[in-house]
Every structure is written in structure tokens, then in C-alpha cells.
């Protein structure tokens, strides 16, 4: 099958494989805020459309819905809370991170009951847990546990990347301290072209598929998976492309969080910050303007 059109260079779903830059950058003006939550949409030539939404599960401490094209994932974070099973606690000075990955029965083309502890989901649970644990500052929450539940609502390739991105957004929403934003993106190599963010059709073509997770700001890799063989120089190109994608997602996630936090802040704030200026206690009528002394 032709995964990259020889004539036009378009991919199966109409994406162009050769552009790494986004088709349009972030709008300079803040995007319009909908009534209940702010939802940003972003289009890249290479990547599928991204959509992130926080606060989708009412009872959870933090929750997020993340979409990469047709892949749609929901994540809920509970905690930090008391350790439920004391036997699992290895080190009482650090928080215990647990993760559960599930695919909804209706998420794939053929509806089939998915057993809870099958090998695939156990493996992905472990991968997500390890990736998130690398960024969570567990030593700040002793004697507690953090539960991350991710469920795939619609699977169209790159579910583990989408799960990691959703989990990051949910953890940030829950106010859990993290070293950095973890984002993940996959890339493949088909028809001698490196392709970013494979969809289900491209994924099932059987070519190499590299999933990369990075700490966006620190530029560190926390996850790297590949189940096929690839020449070294090609691999470097593919990985480069995946990292590029991760960074684009990181920008997107940061923007989503910022708008959400700002809305909450502006609505709640009314005469609630006391701040000290040169030893005098000043009760500010409004949110205190932060006095920048440095160059902002």
C-alpha cells in the first residue's frame, strides 16, 4: 500500500510528511474562552489536530481529556492520598505512583471485550507509570499514593503517547508538583519517509514505530520504545522528528494549562492575598500586582 503518495507527497489522511513546522503558530491574542472551560485547538501539518480539556471528571482531583486526531483518551488522577494497600508501599518517604491503562470496549473498530489484566495493557500501564514517575517530585508527598487512571475512548494509533499527554495534563490539574512537563509522540518510517504521529492504518502497516517521551524543558528522554530494526542514521532522523512533535505538544499543553489557571485565578481572586512590602503588612484589595524587579 502507498502510505506516502508518490505524486503529491500526501499521507493517507492528507497530511504532508515533510513539514515540521506548524501550519500556523499560536494565535497572539488569547483564544476565546467557552463558558465552562477553555479548549484550545491546534493544527499542525505533520501532526493530527490536538485538543486538550481539563476538569472532565468531577470527583477526581485532576482530570483531562486529550485528543490527537481520532485518538481520544481520558485521564483521571486521584491523590496524593493515604496509601490504601500498605504492602505496596516500598519507601514511606516517597509517594507511591500507580497507573491503570484500559481500552474501552468500543474504542476499536471491532467491539470486543478486553480482559482487565492482559499483557498489552499491563505493559502500557507500566510504561506510563515509569514515564510519569520520572517527572513527579515524589519526595514531596511522603506516605501517600497517586493513582492515575487512563482510558482509551477511541483508538486510532498512538494511544500510549496520547495517554502520557493526558496524564501530564491531569497531574498538572491535580496540583501535583512535577519537575517538568512530560510529553510523548510517536514517529515511524514508511515508504522511505519519516512520518510523525502515525495513525492506525500507518501503524498496522508493520513498519518501525518509535515512541518517544521527553521532559520538554530539560530536554531529557524518559521513554523510548521501538519494536523493529532501523538503520542508525534513519533512526536518528525519525527520533529527531518525534522529539520535534513532543515539543509542539508541550507548547500546546502549557498554553492550555495557562489559560485554565488564569481563568480560575481571575474569577476567584477578590481581596484574598496579603503580601508584605518592606515589613508592612498590606492587605491588597485585589490580587497583588507582582513587583518585578528582574526583566520579565
Amino acid at each position, binding site marked *: 500500500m502507498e502510505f506516502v503518495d508518490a505524486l503529491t507527497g500526501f499521507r493517507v489522511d492528507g497530511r504532508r510528511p515533510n513539514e515540521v513546522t506548524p501550519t500556523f503558530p499560536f494565535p497572539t491574542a488569547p483564544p476565546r474562552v467557552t463558558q465552562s472551560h477553555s479548549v484550545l485547538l491546534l493544527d499542525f501539518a505533520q501532526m493530527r489536530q490536538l485538543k486538550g480539556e481539563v476538569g472532565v471528571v*468531577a470527583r477526581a482531583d485532576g482530570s483531562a481529556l486529550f485528543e490527537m486526531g481520532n485518538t481520544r483518551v481520558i485521564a483521571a488522577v486521584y491523590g496524593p492520598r493515604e496509601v490504601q494497600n500498605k504492602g505496596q508501599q516500598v519507601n514511606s518517604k516517597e509517594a507511591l505512583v500507580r497507573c491503570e491503562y484500559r481500552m474501552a470496549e468500543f474504542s476499536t473498530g471491532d467491539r470486543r471485550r478486553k480482559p482487565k489484566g492482559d499483557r498489552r495493557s499491563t505493559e502500557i500501564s507500566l510504561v506510563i507509570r515509569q514515564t510519569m514517575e520520572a517527572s513527579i517530585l515524589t519526595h514531596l508527598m511522603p506516605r501517600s499514593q497517586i493513582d492515575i487512571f487512563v482510558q482509551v475512548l477511541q483508538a486510532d494509533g498512538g494511544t500510549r503517547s496520547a495517554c502520557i499527554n493526558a496524564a501530564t495534563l491531569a497531574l498538572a490539574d491535580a496540583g501535583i*508538583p512535577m519537575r517538568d512537563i512530560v510529553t510523548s509522540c510517536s514517529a515511524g518510517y514508511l515508504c522511505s519517509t519519516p512520518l510523525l504521529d502515525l495513525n492506525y492504518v500507518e501503524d498496522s502497516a508493520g513498519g518501525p514505530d518509535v515512541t518517544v517521551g521527553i521532559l520538554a524543558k530539560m530536554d531529557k528522554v524518559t521513554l523510548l520504545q521501538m519494536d523493529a530494526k532501523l538503520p542508525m542514521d534513519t533512526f536518528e532522523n525519525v527520533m529527531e522528528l518525534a522529539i520535534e512533535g513532543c515539543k509542539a505538544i508541550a507548547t500546546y499543553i502549557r498554553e492550555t494549562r495557562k489559560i485554565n489557571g488564569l481563568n*480560575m485565578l481571575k*474569577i476567584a481572586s477578590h481581596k484574598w492575598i496579603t503580601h508584605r512590602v518592606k515589613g508592612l503588612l498590606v492587605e491588597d484589595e485585589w490580587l497583588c500586582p507582582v513587583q*518585578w524587579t528582574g526583566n520579565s
Partner: protein
Amino acid sequence: MRDLHLSLNQTQRVRLEAALHELQSLAPAAASAAAVTVADTIPVNQEDNILKGHGTSDQDGEVVATLCGVVERVNKLVYVRTLRARYKPEVGDIIVGRVIEIAPKRWRLEINFSQDAVLMLSSMNLPDGIQRRRTAVDELNMRSIFEENDVICAEVRGFQHDGSLHLQARSEKYGKLERGQLLTVPPYLVKRKKQHFHHLAQYDVDLILGCNGFIWVGEHVVVGEKTKTTEYQQKSSDDAENFTPLETRKHICRLANAVRVLSALGFTLTVELIIETAEASVSSNVEVNNMLGAEFYVQTAEREAKRRADLLRKKNGAR
């Protein structure tokens, strides 16, 4: 705002959006500069050696946020205060919690913290009010004081050496809360004040704004008579006498719904605001059960926007 899942009609949606937009525009521009997300660099002046507080870390000489929230600066200290997160106890906070377990000589309480709080039998006033050593008999009778699922009010005593959080209830005003409603709101909406217990005499209702975001709305209890009522209940007699009047129950529901509306909209909860909202529902003839309908949400948002605009105008006029 996030818990708001309403079915609004077109007009209501426009009105709510306008009100929320106004609220956002009323907030000072500095708010946007103070908001940070994970991995944002916090601009600081390197010359005045600053202290890095909670929610910050050092990366290649830069101060980087590890939380999403607001940057606060107190003299040299720079820290990030989170908005939506679990409760972070401070010594002396008044909290409301629910008993989840009775362990030897202690109760374990759920208080929306990252671990369960501990209330020792020894840091608790005995029902007979006598100061004495707690005996084994007292320990066996712990269930007569608090049972599982009881809602109680206490004060944060501090962290023990092993990192557990201890509470105390050494006053008449602390103890079991009965005949009322417990509401949970995000803790950032409750600000630490001098007064957390409020007796709303006009409604005959007690309102406790727990620092942990647990809010109690219940029938007024006269301090000092508490011991008497517990005795009554043990005998399980005089049910009619202990009956909460219908009027009071309605007031409790009205105030509780006011808290629900305000917290869903994301307004900082103060007694004044809660009373004002409840009063407004009375004056605009909104029934208790209709308070959680879309219309009242929109009205509340509009009223708050107007109130803040007036305040700002007054403040600017005074200058």
C-alpha cells in the same frame, strides 16, 4: 467554573459569558504575569539572593515552577501557590473532617490532605469535661464519642516526627457536628480568616468554613449544651424535642445551595457572599430546589460582576 455542567439556553449562555468575561477583565493585568505553569521560568533578580519556596526548583541557575498556580513574593521568598490542589495544613487551621477509622487511642480522619489526619484520644476533651488521664475504659468507649462516618470539627495541632498530621479538639466549640450538611469545595476557595465559625442568628444556623475546603452548614448548637444532647441521644429518647424545625432545615438547604453555586462558579467563599447569595435567592423568589438551576447561576455571576465593578469604581473614586 470547571464543575459547571449546566444546560443553558442561548440567552443564558450569552449572559453568563458576558458576566464571566467582565469578571476576568476586572482582575488586574498583573494577574496574568503572576500565573505560572509547570516548567515556567519565574523571573527573578539574581543580585538580591532570593529564597526559593514551595513549588519552585532550581534548574541551571533559573528558578522554575514545579506547580501550576500563582507566584507569590514575600520579601526575599519566592514561592508558587497552587489553585486546585489538595489541602495543605498549617498549624492552627480549623478543619472539618470525617472519621474513617477508629484505631487504638486515636481516630483517623479524612480531611482532603495527602494522608489521613490523626486525632488522639488524649488531645480531646472528654464528654464529662474532667481533666484526667485516659484509661482503658475511655479507650473502649471511644465509639460513644465519635463513630465511623461522623463529621467532626477540629484544629490542626501539627506534624509529628514520623510525618503524620495530628489534630486536637480541646475546646467546647470543636467536636461532633450533627444535623446539617457537609459540602466539599476546592480548598483554594476558603481563605484563612480570624473567624471560621459563624452563627447566622437570623437563620438559626451554624456555618463552619473549614480551611480544608469542607464546609459545614447545620443547625445552631449552643456551646456547652453539647454534652447534654449527646446524653439525650444515648438514651434515644425525646425525639420530638430534638427535632429540627422545618424552617431551619430549609435555611440549611438554602445556604448549602448558595455555597454550591458559588463554588461551582469559582468565587472565593466568604460568609458575606454566602449570606448575600442566599438573601438574593429569597428576594428573587427562587425556591430552594431551583437554586441549582441554570438561571440562578447566571444571576449570581452577574451580581458578583456588578459588585466587584462597584467596588473597583468606589476604590478608584476614593483615590
